[in-house]
């Protein structure tokens, strides 16, 4: 009979534990970022003009052979300006090619943006209509994909890159890629 006296307390403790776990699991500020089903799979094929030479079409096959970091941005994207100095610093280490993916942007605006803030990119692809972006599962800017030399997506980050994200996620991903190549 004694056990039923403790029942409410046990139930309460169970609930508290459940809610506590909920709070604990939501501690990550990037909790809204969707895990990409592309990670571990072949990157989607595309054929997009280069921003600086609109008549030149670039395909995934051309980029294969060496890994690259695909960074989605737009001149309309506020967070991209926050990310820009971080990305520039990373690009200057020449650890990996940084390819820009100019998404839903007017090329003229994009070029002005790069002229104003500096161009950290090795190459910029221009996807004005956003058609190929759907194949990549892009849903906002900035987003970054790490693609290895065989064209397999190894890592994705939604939201601006920070020094912390680079140190704790991107660099380890690059290391594992280098060791398993």
């Amino acid at each position: 009979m004694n056990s039923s006296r403790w029942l409410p307390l046990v139930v309460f403790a169970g609930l508290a534990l459940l809610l506590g776990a909920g709070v604990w699991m939501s501690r990550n500020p990037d909790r809204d970022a969707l895990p990409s089903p592309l990670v571990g799979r072949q990157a989607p094929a595309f054929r997009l003009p280069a921003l600086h030479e609109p008549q030149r079409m670039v395909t995934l096959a051309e980029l294969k052979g060496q890994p690259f970091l695909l960074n989605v941005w737009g001149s309309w994207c506020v967070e991209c300006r926050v990310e820009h100095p971080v990305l520039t610093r990373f690009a200057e280490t020449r650890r990996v090619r940084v390819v820009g993916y100019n998404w839903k942007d007017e090329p003229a605006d994009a070029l002005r943006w790069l002229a104003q803030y500096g161009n950290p990119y090795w190459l910029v692809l221009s996807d004005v209509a956003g058609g190929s972006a759907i194949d990549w599962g892009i849903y906002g800017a900035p987003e970054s994909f790490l693609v290895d030399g065989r064209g397999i997506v190894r890592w994705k980050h939604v939201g601006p890159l920070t020094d912390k994200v680079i140190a704790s996620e991107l660099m380890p991903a690059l290391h594992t890629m280098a060791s398993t190549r």
Partner: protein
Amino acid sequence: MHLVLAALLWLACSCAYAQANAQADAAPLQFRSASEQARFHGLAAELRCVMCQNQSLADSNALIALSLRREVLDLMRAGRTDRQIKDFLVSRYGEFVLYKPRVAASTWLLWLGPGALLLVGAGVVAKLLRRRKPAPATPDDDAQEW
């Protein structure tokens, strides 16, 4: 004078162009028939907007929701079934785009959890009820003055 005129003309043109562009992006989708519209709305309501995650694709005004609505309509017109369209989006954006997740090994807990909890609760209630001895009828105690 000619220069000013030309400049004005150019300005007017570029403004018109910019407006046309904005309108093309914001223009509501044109449906060919009522059945197409009904099918589209049914499908869009079952898909979640990936940007603003508590809205359906049908409700959201986010840039990406607009593109995806267009894509869904294009796929419908290309003759894809609802199932194929959902597969298309899931393979790009993940299971998250489905408001009604599929029954798979990873979603068993989600699908069966509530039922299992209900069973556990029913079990607890049944046990408590069985353990409770039938209460003796309250004795009539007329002597008491309440």
